[in-house]
């Protein structure tokens, strides 16, 4: 099976501070569903940031989607990010854009034509049950609704890899369920690789998944 992520002796740190991830070795198969867990401050979010190139490796090698992120150029990083779907704990929606335009963002960046963009956005709005909120601005929505918008944005361009950082951290049960259903659906139907950083793995997961745990800077697979 193809590997979508390969890390060799990967070390991560913010600037010159203490190393958070120390010489980690792991690989993730294409099309798999992966949970990364760990205590607060263990380095889960740091690892996720390194996967979309917001944090450069301090040492070692990290290849995502065939792109080596240690010493990556900005154009190659942009190329990689165009093929990723990222869901943030704090949503990161553009405040001055409507819900509809926020979902369009990756489609605009990837140069989709207007008709395809509109039909894709309509379909996603239906999936996240926010059709009636399309013209609203993020600050007019609840936290759960904002995260559903962020989820729709992450799925809009059919990415090869979805990275989700505590996607249901502060959400109500209904919104959490919608998010999990969408992530499972993307993995099952579109064979999209999904990596979720979380404190708790939901008990109702309907897909096979791998589980990695981070502790004391080391990443180990939980069997």
């Amino acid at each position, binding site marked *: 099976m193809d590997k979508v992520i390969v890390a060799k002796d990967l070390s991560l740190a913010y600037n010159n501070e203490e190393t958070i991830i120390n010489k980690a070795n792991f690989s993730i198969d294409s099309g798999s569903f992966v949970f990364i867990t760990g205590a607060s401050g263990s380095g889960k979010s740091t690892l996720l940031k390194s996967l979309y190139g*917001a*944090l450069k490796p301090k040492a070692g090698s990290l290849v995502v989607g065939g792109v080596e992120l240690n010493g990556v150029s900005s154009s190659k990083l*942009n190329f990689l990010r*165009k093929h990723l779907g990222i869901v943030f704990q704090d949503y990161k929606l*553009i*405040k001055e854009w409507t819900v509809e335009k926020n979902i369009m*963002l990756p489609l605009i*960046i990837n140069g989709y034509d207007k008709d395809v963009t509109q039909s894709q956005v309509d379909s996603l709005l239906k999936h996240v049950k926010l059709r009636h909120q399309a013209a609203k601005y993020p600050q007019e929505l609840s936290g759960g609704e904002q995260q559903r918008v962020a989820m729709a944005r992450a799925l809009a361009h059919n990415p090869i890899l979805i990275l989700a950082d505590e996607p249901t951290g502060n959400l109500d049960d209904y919104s959490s369920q919608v998010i999990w259903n969408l992530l499972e659906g993307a993995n099952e139907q579109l064979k999209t690789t999904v990596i979720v950083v979380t404190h708790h793995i939901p008990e109702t997961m309907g897909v096979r998944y791998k589980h990695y745990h981070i502790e004391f800077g080391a990443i180990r697979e939980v069997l």
Partner: protein
Amino acid sequence: MIVERSIDAYKDNLATNYALVVVAQKRLDVKSLQRANSIIDTVEELSADSVIKRLNGGMSKKNRELLKVTLPKFYKLKLKHYPTPQELEELNKKLLRTQSIKKVESFTKTHDTTYKLLLLFKTVVSVFAFTVILVTILLIFKELRIWQFQHNERMSIMGLFGAPVWLRSAVLFRLAIVDAIIAFLLAFILFSYLATTEWVQKQFDSIGINVVFFDTLYDSLIMLGVALAISILLAVFIVLGHKEEV
């Protein structure tokens, strides 16, 4: 630009009204005088008739003719621009070096006072303009901080989804251009209004100058160019100073 233009017009006005009087024993070669002193614009010989008329009482025609021949020649010299005291002194010396010229009346005291007043006016205007520019620069830097704050988050989010720099900053540049056009239009309306106002015209008339207050094409182009340049420069600073969130 308007102040500069007004000062220039005022200087021209002074130059027009200012003249030196030269007294010479013989008739002067006007062309060679002009060639030797490039600042001289025109040389006009003053007629001796008015002087002789005043001495008319009991003088025979023959004596009058004799007097006319023996009287020195008077010339009025107009200059190309209003001279500085140094230029005036130099011209005086040069003219007096010409053999037949016996006296040069340059009305030095009046000239110096007028010139100093002009200098004072220019200095006051320069200090005022400098203060305005300084305040404007400070305001521009404040505006830069506000823009940075407004656009940083959106640019970061777009960057996380792989938007190239031009796409991330497209909104910013569009806003910068729109803002520059709005600022230009406001200034254009204000200056167009002032240019047609009678009050402004009266102020210029009162000091005897005729100046184009607002050149619709030239001044508009300059204003639009400056507004666009500043706005685009600000946008470039924001793009260059943008740091991606970690």
